[in-house]
């Protein structure tokens, strides 16, 4: 009998717990952050920029912008400063009237200046906090992260969503990279790998009489240890992706066989790569072999490409373009001494015994590394048009 | 406040346990369970009134380090 009463008590307790104990959070008491911008100010302080959704604005946006020209804002960009990121966040509580909720955060943007001083201290908070996802996309802004967040996307109401879509699309262009917090952490923690992070920039976009700022995915930031040291342009970025084996699709433009000024575009259908580390007399030699299958996507000349000779020629030219891209990326990375290709890791895996000696001076070894590039390409299909239409 | 809560909780546990044991004349059980309860009460009470108790892990660690190094 006594124990039955205890059972009832327990049931009562459960009822209390079901309603959510200490950690309840009501939607209307949260400021949901979608993007986090990190900048370093001149006095060494950290400035955080949050892109916070305004739930009430969403309701009235259906009535379009009101008569006095003021645009409805669905999002609020606010900044806060402090000596550390966490302090900045808590300082921000003076102006943000609701509890900051980072679990929905999708994007972390780091300003160029802050990145030059090292990113690992800036990412520690995000890595440590249990509400920030490891799958956040990380970007390096050319300029200040705050400016990027204050720009607006024309298509999407939510800039973070727009950035997420942009970065998803890199799969079909292979001109920019997609780097999540997890990727960055992986290469930061490794002794030989150096991280790379996709970059963002603001470009002027003239729409009628007024010019607007537009956020654009551009270039890839390169890091030595955790300091920003240089950038890969889109061509070099493609080279990087070839070596990493992350090219999924994209367009390769080659000169037409008959006329150098006319271009032919080839769509990458399939690509794979093999990286073969070797040691020759104690000197590391790397062989990168890329295999690619493409389709003829477009031709701007008028000769018939659908002949075996022309196809062969296109394949060769395509291979040359790929080689050039890889070589460009290698040259820049070796000049800067940043091993973004994970070559060091490959040596570690293949030569565990010899590697400690190499690792000691990996930067120099990498700078002097001989890399052989082998590219095999194939052309498969040519679309619906067998021959170009001409008079 | 906390002190009162601790005393209250332990009194309730004692009240739930004891009458049954006394009625059934299970004296050994009564002794052992009161022993456990008293130990628990002393430990809780000391912590609640703010006395720093040593961490048992530290003791084990010291012994192990003495033997392994």
């Amino acid at each position, binding site marked *: 009998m006594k124990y039955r009463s205890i059972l009832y008590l327990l049931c009562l307790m459960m009822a209390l717990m079901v309603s959510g104990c200490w950690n309840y959070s009501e939607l209307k008491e949260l400021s949901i952050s979608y993007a986090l911008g990190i900048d370093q100010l001149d006095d060494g302080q950290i400035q955080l920029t949050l892109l916070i959704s305004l739930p009430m604005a969403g309701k009235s946006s259906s009535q379009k912008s009101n008569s006095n020209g003021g645009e409805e804002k669905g999002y609020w960009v606010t900044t806060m400063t402090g000596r550390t990121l966490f302090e900045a966040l808590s300082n921000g509580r003076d102006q943000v009237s609701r509890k900051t909720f980072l679990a929905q955060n999708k994007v972390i943007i780091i300003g160029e200046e802050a990145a030059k001083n090292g990113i690992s201290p800036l990412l520690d908070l995000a890595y440590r906090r249990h509400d920030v996802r490891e799958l956040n996309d990380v970007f390096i802004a050319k300029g200040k992260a705050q400016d990027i967040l204050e720009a607006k996307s024309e298509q999407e109401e939510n800039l973070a969503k727009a950035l997420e879509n942009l970065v998803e699309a890199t799969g079909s262009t292979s001109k920019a990279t997609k780097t999540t917090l997890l990727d960055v952490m992986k290469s930061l923690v490794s002794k030989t790998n150096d991280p790379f992070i996709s970059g963002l920039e603001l470009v002027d976009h003239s729409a009628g009489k007024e010019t607007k700022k537009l956020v654009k995915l551009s270039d890839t930031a390169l890091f030595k240890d955790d300091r920003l040291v240089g950038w890969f342009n889109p061509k070099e970025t493609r080279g990087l992706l070839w070596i990493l084996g992350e090219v999924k699709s994209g367009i390769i433009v080659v000169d037409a066989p008959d006329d150098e000024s006319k271009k032919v575009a080839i769509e990458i259908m399939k690509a794979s790569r093999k990286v073969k580390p070797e040691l020759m007399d104690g000197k590391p030699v790397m062989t990168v072999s890329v295999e690619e299958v493409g389709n003829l996507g477009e031709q701007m000349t008028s000769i018939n490409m659908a002949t075996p000779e022309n196809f062969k020629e296109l394949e060769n030219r395509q291979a040359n373009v790929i080689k050039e891209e890889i070589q460009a990326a290698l040259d820049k990375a070796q000049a800067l001494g940043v091993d973004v290709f994970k070559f060091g890791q490959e040596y570690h895996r293949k030569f565990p015994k010899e590697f400690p000696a190499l690792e000691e001076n990996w930067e120099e070894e990498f700078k002097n590394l001989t890399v052989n590039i082998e590219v095999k390409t194939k052309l498969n299909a040519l679309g619906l048009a067998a021959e170009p239409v001409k008079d | 406040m906390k002190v009162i809560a601790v005393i209250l909780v332990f009194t309730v546990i004692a009240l739930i346990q004891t009458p049954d044991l006394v009625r059934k004349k*299970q004296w*050994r059980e009564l002794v052992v369970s*009161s022993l456990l309860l008293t130990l628990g009460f002393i430990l809780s009470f000391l912590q609640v009134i703010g006395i720093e108790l040593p961490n048992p892990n530290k003791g084990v660690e010291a012994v192990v380090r003495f033997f392994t190094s």
Partner: protein
Amino acid sequence: MLEGGKITSKQMILLLFTSRMITWIAFLFVIFAPPGNQDVWIDCLMALPLQLLLALPFYFLAKRFDKQSFFEYTTAILGKPGKGIGILYILFLIHMSALSIAQFSIFLTTVLMDITPPLFFKITLLILSAFAAYKGIESLGRFTELVAPIGMIVVLGVVLALVKDMDPKEFLPFLESGLFPSFFTGLYIFSTNIELIMMAVLLPFLNHRGKLNTVYIGFPILLVVFLFTLTATVIALFGYDLAKTMTFPFYSAIRTISLGNIIERVESIFVAAWLLGLYVKMALYLYVTVLGISQIFRLKVYRPLLLPLVSLIVPVSTLLGKNIVEMNEFTSFEIYPWYALNFIFIIPFFLLLTAIVRRKGEYRP
């Protein structure tokens, strides 16, 4: 008769397995142990032969005293001093229960509910577990049979969802620092397996005595397979270097699940399943401890001891769980094995020797 219930060998394996796995899922200690590189998965496999070999004292003791539990045959072998050994084990079990509950309240407050006071978890969970232990071994066994598959399915589901993000190359180079460190870590893994004591206490409740071999072999195999899965998942996903920097590696792995941007943030489901297992674990610990106490002092009932035991474990666990750094230091490979090995290998070994010398119990092969 203290306990009239019987459990099947399957229930027993699952009970012990759940109890051990729950700890390893949250705190994957193997990752931080030697050899400290991508070869730690070998350690997990290494634990199997070690476990089968080093648990032999328990096995032969159980063969000699097939009607008696661990706490009963210590007295049968040693006489009065056997009670001292028993009390030592009780203290050890209380320490381990308090340590477990302290670890888990830290795990929960770190990963999910950071404002809830740890004391709240400790008290509610222990009271509920005490209720399960109150119901006896039979219902605990049945409950485990229900819960353990849920936990296994969740873990396997998590691993399957992560397969696409794994990189088998993370396991290379193979055997970078030789086999010896793995051997040591195998010992460490074995030493964390204090469920062997639970096994020794519960064996008399096995419904078919002949199933002893099944439990003795099935439990470590299941354990090693799962531990290997966890470790390999974490390493293939993060690479060893990053995994080493994480407090809860497997939990971090679950956080990265993303299937087509639809199935994401599944960690709450995981923690829910995990809590069920934790409930079983604490119930088992409480049950074995009170049963042990009653057997040492020849009590007729063990149930009145449950609440006093809970009231003792809670303050001890607040003592132990002051901060996670101190706790991790204690459970690290430097301290913990030398402490726990005494209880799961050395003392049983000498007990067995004494039993053989004094011709206590009869050996029935």
